């Protein structure tokens, strides 16, 4: 009755993350989902990282401030390398894209910027994804790129 897991997974990943041959909205969707997963990964790491500073799962009372300071400094030095900096540049891009495109999705969800229904004529441009929404989509890409440039400047600039 149900498909085996591997073909099902393959189908799902292709359906979600293969935006070629479709219009730009499909790219927006794939990027929104990828960035959501990426930022969730950052969130989990951030919870663990900040939790470690106050003792992690080992300490269940308030540790000395010097202990927290030592762990924080050690964590900061451990993370201060080009690999993690590059990761943060990518996370910055993803976060800004997800935010601005998310605002577009929220507007669409509550019925704004939807366009009017019209007779479908060749080449069938979707009325629900009109100029305003396209503008916000491209704005999200531009702002995301600007965030990445800002982050590169912080991490790799002089």
């Amino acid at each position: 009755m149900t498909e085996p897991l591997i073909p099902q997974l393959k189908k799902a990943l292709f359906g979600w993350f293969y935006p070629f041959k479709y219009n730009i909205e499909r790219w927006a969707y794939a990027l929104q989902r990828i960035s959501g997963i990426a930022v969730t990964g950052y969130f989990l790491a951030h919870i663990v990282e900040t939790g470690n500073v106050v003792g992690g799962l080992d300490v269940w009372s308030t540790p000395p401030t010097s202990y927290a300071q030592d762990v924080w400094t050690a964590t900061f030095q451990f993370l201060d390398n080009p690999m993690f900096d590059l990761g943060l540049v990518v996370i910055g891009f993803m976060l800004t894209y997800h935010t601005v495109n998310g605002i577009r999705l929220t507007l669409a969800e509550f019925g704004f910027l939807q366009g009017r229904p019209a007779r479908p004529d060749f080449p069938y441009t979707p009325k629900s994804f009109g100029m305003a929404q396209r503008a916000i989509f491209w704005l999200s890409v531009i702002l995301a790129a600007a965030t990445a440039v800002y982050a590169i400047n912080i991490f790799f600039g002089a």
Partner: protein
Amino acid sequence: MKESTKMLLHYITGLGIVIVGGIHLFTVFLTGPYEQNLAFSGGPYSVISVYRSFILALTLELLLVFVDYHALNGIRVILIEFHQGAKWERGVSWILAVAGLLLFVYGTRTILIANALA
């Protein structure tokens, strides 16, 4: 909870993140030298100073709640789109709800302890 309520909460928490997440990023990047704000102590927006301020610690707690719900509900949406069925949907929802609660407790513990650090 109805599916539409869950999604309404998804959009509300999303907009909430734009606000409190904006405050969080503002205190880190736009209130002074980045190095000073990421140092453990020493500046008005250094790591421990943010936790010690009641208002700023409260924004961190709100950010934790909002991102916790938004992220785990996002994963739930992906997983129930991946496979359909009442049993799967209930299982995924419950497991993620428990995971979200654990994350909330652990994150809140971090904020409370850091707030109390002498």
